[in-house]
């Protein structure tokens, strides 16, 4: 039934034969846009940040690590709309360049974590019994591990750097995602159309790939888009604590802590406010998009985690 309700919400009819023509593509997109203005807004914001991520360093008026671009700790001015930090680096350029760092890391982490987590969840939910027990308990064990230790282990094994952060974030989000997909898979497994398929003599494998998976897969997209916001927050949180990318790299989280924080307390509020706003807006965009996608594909998901 999920397939049907999902389709209905998107303004299409999924069954009923060929008597009813589906509206043209443009019409469908239009309806989507009008139906979910917030989601579109979020998508646009996110696209904006992605563009920033791709071209940011080129668009930046100054080298984000260029020392003494102006007088250190200078305030807001037309040449330096966000001011300068204590090394004289232009904050506006740093915020633009920071988009790339943050989005690359969180984006990759969420793609890997989301797909891997979904895969594990589907397997777990579909096959059940010992596989389910094993996967879920080991997932619990992983989740029980304080993230910090996990991260430290990864640092010691793989060294500091963006790759380790991606790994840590992906692994951290794995279990949560797998639980969602597992729950959905279990529901699908017991639904009538699956029983019908089985009664018709379909093999388990066919049932799995042709029936269960396509209905559950949209959840992966939802997971990834909802997870993006959380991943950005986690990445900047780690950077804030000094555990993320190396200090000096333009990164929103780093610019919110350390020397910037010390000087912000002495009156230079711009040093922390603009990077913080950047994080908030990026996460906002990701969240709005994630919510809209969730509403499109499974409104019931809102009531379940």
């Amino acid at each position, binding site marked *: 039934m999920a397939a049907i309700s999902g389709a209905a919400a998107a303004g299409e009819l999924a069954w009923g034969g060929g008597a009813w023509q589906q509206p043209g593509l443009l019409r469908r997109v239009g309806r989507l846009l009008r139906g979910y203005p917030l989601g579109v807004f979020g998508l646009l914001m996110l696209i904006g940040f992605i563009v920033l991520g791709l071209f940011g360093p080129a668009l930046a008026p100054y080298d984000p690590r260029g020392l003494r671009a102006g007088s250190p700790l200078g305030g807001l001015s037309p040449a330096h709309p966000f001011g300068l930090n204590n090394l004289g680096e232009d904050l506006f350029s740093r915020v633009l360049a920071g988009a790339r760092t943050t989005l690359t890391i969180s984006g990759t982490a969420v793609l890997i974590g989301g797909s891997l987590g979904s895969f594990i969840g589907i397997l777990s939910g579909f096959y059940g019994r010992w596989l389910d027990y094993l996967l879920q308990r080991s997932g*619990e064990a992983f989740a029980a*591990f*304080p993230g910090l230790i996990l991260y430290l282990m990864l640092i010691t094994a793989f060294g500091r750097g963006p790759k380790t952060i991606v790994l840590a974030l992906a692994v951290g989000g794995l279990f949560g995602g797998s639980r969602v997909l597992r729950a959905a898979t279990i529901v699908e497994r017991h639904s009538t159309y699956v029983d019908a398929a089985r009664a018709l003599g379909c093999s388990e494998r066919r049932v799995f790939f042709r029936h269960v998976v396509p209905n559950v897969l949209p959840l992966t997209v939802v997971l990834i888009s909802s997870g993006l916001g959380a991943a950005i927050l986690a990445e900047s*949180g780690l950077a804030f604590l000094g555990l993320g990318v190396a200090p000096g790299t333009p990164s929103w989280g780093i610019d919110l802590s350390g020397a910037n924080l010390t000087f912000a307390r002495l009156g230079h509020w711009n040093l922390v406010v603009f990077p913080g706003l950047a994080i908030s807006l990026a996460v906002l965009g990701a969240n709005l998009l994630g919510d809209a996608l969730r509403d499109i594909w499974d409104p019931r998901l809102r*009531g379940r985690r």
Partner: protein
Amino acid sequence: MRRYVIRRLLALPVIAAAVSIITFAILRSPWAGDPAILLAGQGASQDQVAGIRHTLGLDRPIIVQFGDWLLHLARGDFGKTFRGQQPVWPEITRRLPITFEIMALAVLFGTFFGVLYGVISAVRQNTWLDYGLRVFAVFGQSIPSFFLLVLLIVLPSLWWHYSPPVGGHKSLFAHPWENLRLYVPPTLILAIAHSAILMRLTRSTLLDVLRQDYVRTAKSKGLRERSVVLSHALRNALIPIITITGTLIAELFFGALILEQVFSINGLGQFFFQSVLARDFPVVQFLVVYTAGVVIVLNLLVDLSYVLLDPRVRYT
């Protein structure tokens, strides 16, 4: 049902053992950094470092160290910290109330405001109140808590030359006013993200429930709206709320850590963080096993609460 609980609980010692073995191995592996060098500090000679390493017992083979740790653990002796050579257990129990209070306040505020706003939002659906609360929820989920905490420090000192109270932790029982003055503003901020998620969840679940037939029946029977909402609808919405709260509590430890870091509060989160950085193994080991246990028990409690809340749920 009982068998289910036992099966879940059986996992606890297994997981605790696995977690502690893995942690032990990783921490004492050659790549993890040498606590003796860190303790000796920059400028210490090779011999001094060796001396400190010997005092800490780090020059014995790993198996011996692990066995020794287990033996002590069995006797209830959690070892001595590397920094300052003090017994681990009192160090932890001293700081536990602080972090516990932070997390408890955050959960309390988060749940209270989250559910409250969710109910208001659902009952007054599509009014300005509803929109306002939903905007708040969306922003609340997007703005990082550490950003707000930083603003909480930076802005008041900028505008009013106000700074946080001085003098460290005051017990809630001995000096309630000073205690709350210190902890309430930052925990309110921590609670924002939590309450935002809860608010939206409560709202949507409640909306679903309110549309159900039995609610219409209750209303047509003449029951007051408030009692309908609270006793009938809300109870059914509780399952997802409890699930989320369970997950969020685990994430809250990280939030408490950041709070303690930004506000320089001497709690368990900070202690753990600094012990990890300083490779203070006994502390880290103990806390890892402890938190693993807590999380597992928490998950089990959440799953068990489903049975209480929804008679249709049954575990075999």
